[in-house]
């Protein structure tokens, strides 16, 4: 992993296990202040965010700082990124600053792969277009493992705009490596049949109730209106057919958990009652974001 982290698809299962195990050590102990480490003292991490992000960017920043690294964040608004500078020029400018790693978020699938091909610096993909969001899948796995002893054999329903979701892709790749049973569900034009072939153990249904029946984990996705080029489903029908409501939870396992990568649209893909219910682990996901990203940074730079 010294080369960076571009995606989950080509990551070894053992590597994932090592990160998840290490992340456990970085989880905050109850009512204890965090002790700042100096594992990465003197190292420079550049957070390069071409696309708006709150939780991912801040949690990468916190993770870097808790490990003692110097972290700077460059975001699209107010930088040369928004002034028409090409990716190649940005890349050359950054290389001249000699960072030890670059954390990158970009609206184009494959943008970090492009950067990685041309820069001898480890690149950490913080979400590329509609492709992958590897650290999100790692923190989701960490969150599931905080509630279940193993991922093996779990039934995970992923519901929503799957085709445009980098979170879904990374989660599918990760969960599949651990032998989970993955059910994808959403409007047909957002869940193309080819998705069932990208990893073993994936199946598709267009019926939300069937997807949730017997599930251990329900992952809801945000409807990404900004990525849809046209109306892929009739306006106004989304919540009725693919929004998660309290009555759906009765179909899942009694101790099933509900996840969402955020930001949530209450009343669109998830009802407020579910988002705020005991089943929801959405805030645990946010907490684990820092721990998992510390483990990733340590593994790449430590």
């Amino acid at each position, binding site marked *: 992993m010294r080369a960076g982290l571009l995606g989950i698809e080509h990551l070894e299962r053992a590597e994932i296990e090592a990160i998840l195990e290490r992340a456990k050590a970085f989880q905050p102990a109850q009512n204890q202040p965090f002790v700042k480490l100096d594992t990465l003292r003197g190292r420079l991490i550049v957070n390069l965010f071409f696309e708006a992000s709150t939780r991912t960017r801040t949690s990468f920043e916190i993770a870097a700082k808790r490990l003692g690294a110097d972290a700077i964040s460059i975001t699209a608004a107010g930088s040369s990124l928004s002034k028409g500078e090409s990716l190649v020029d940005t890349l050359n400018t950054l290389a001249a600053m000699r960072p030890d790693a670059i954390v990158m978020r970009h609206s184009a699938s494959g943008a970090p792969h492009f950067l990685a*091909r041309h820069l001898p610096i480890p690149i950490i993909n913080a979400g590329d277009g509609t492709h992958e969001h590897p650290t999100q899948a790692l923190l989701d796995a960490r969150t599931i493992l905080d509630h279940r002893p193993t991922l093996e054999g779990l039934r995970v329903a992923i519901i929503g705009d799957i085709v445009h979701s980098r979170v879904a892709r990374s989660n599918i790749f990760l969960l599949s490596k651990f032998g989970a049973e993955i059910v994808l569900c959403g409007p047909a034009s957002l869940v193309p049949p080819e998705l069932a072939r990208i990893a073993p153990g994936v199946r598709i249904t267009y019926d939300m109730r069937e997807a949730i029946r017997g599930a251990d984990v329900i992952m809801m996705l945000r409807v990404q209106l900004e990525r849809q080029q046209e109306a892929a489903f009739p306006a106004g029908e989304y919540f009725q057919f693919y929004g998660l409501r309290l009555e759906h939870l009765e179909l899942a396992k009694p101790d099933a958990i509900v996840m969402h990568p955020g930001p949530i649209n209450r009343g669109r893909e998830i009802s407020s009652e579910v988002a705020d219910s005991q089943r929801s682990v959405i805030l645990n996901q946010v907490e684990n974001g820092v721990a998992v990203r510390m483990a990733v940074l340590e593994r790449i730079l430590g």
Partner: protein
Amino acid sequence: MPKLLIRNGRVMDPATGFDQVADVLIKSGLIVRIGPNLHATGAIAFDATGLVVAPGFIDLHTHLREPGYEHAETIETGTKAAVAGGFTTVCAMPNTKPVNDDAAVTRYILEQAERFALANVLPVGAITENSEGERLAAIGSMKAAGAVAISDDGRPVMNSRVMRRAMEFARAFDLVVIDHCEDLNLSAGGDMHEGEHSVRLGLRGIPSVAEDIMVARDLLLVELTGARLHVAHVSSARSLAMIAEAKQRGLPVTCEVTPHHIALTDADLAGYDSNFKMKPPLRSAADRDALIEGIVSGVVDAIATDHAPHPGSEKMQEFEKCPFGVIGLETALGVALKTLVHTGKIPLMRLIELFTTGPARVLGLSRAGLEPGAVADLTIFDPELIWTYDVNRSFSKSKNSPFDGWTFRGGPVATVVKGRIVWQRSQERG
């Protein structure tokens, strides 16, 4: 011009089936004699021992980019790359700036070619004004000025009524209509073939049906109008099957495939390398296999490069921002040998046909034979030469090739245009 004697080569001519070791004597740009042990005093001798001497290769689909996009390619650099790839003739696609939609542009291209081109340049005129798909271009006067076909390549005519009128008009002028079959509504926003790999990579898809629908429409219009149709760069199995069926019914339809569509698939996009991004996109392995099968069965008439230069600055961007197209003149023969001949799919003679008499038939050209009196356009290649393609040494102004670093068995050695050796593989390049 001194006489030229090409000695002791394996002379292969798909037009007649001729396949013998022989000498070829050329005088004043024409083939004078073909036979064993020819003698000619004062002739320049070229030793072709161990080499194949074939009719000059014709590329039906080349983007020379001049006028208007000289930063990407010029008639001079594009034809340099052509002859280095063994092509003696290239068809220049009309999507230049201005678009080749009237006789003045056609004449300009031919004048520039007269001054700078190493290969023969045959202009293809646009179907509609500015290739906007609305009003028919000056088809008749372009033909009179030297256009050999019409096409709105890259910006296909969406309006079926306009296409019908174009076909009717083209038929009257005995011009072949070359169509880049793509339903622009179905392909809109797409970056690669729609399938498992596009879903895996999170890239927007261009479904095969975007091509198939337009092939189906065009075939129906051919039935209606009787025009000759040539389907450019077929990439989908379904499209090829429809073309095969139409040919069986005797419709005047021909088609070409590109080297990249028979050598690569959508799985090759895993690295997000924009040198694998073109239209139509690299399709599935099943489509690729069907194209190769179509070459074997004879449904495919020609191999054409769709040489589409784009400068590095345009290809060095986010994948979704990069323009479509790859260069291919210099690698076409190597790729075709590797994919078709070394695999035992087709004999060498059929391969030569795909580069010579095949495309000549598509255009209705008489040239392309190796008989006395014919224009001496010859492609001389070594079927066993081992060479590695280094795109940075390409004659093309642009370096967007998916085949950089590939090692080939078999490649061009010398190219003769109108009786003159215009390119020869130098020792250090070998």
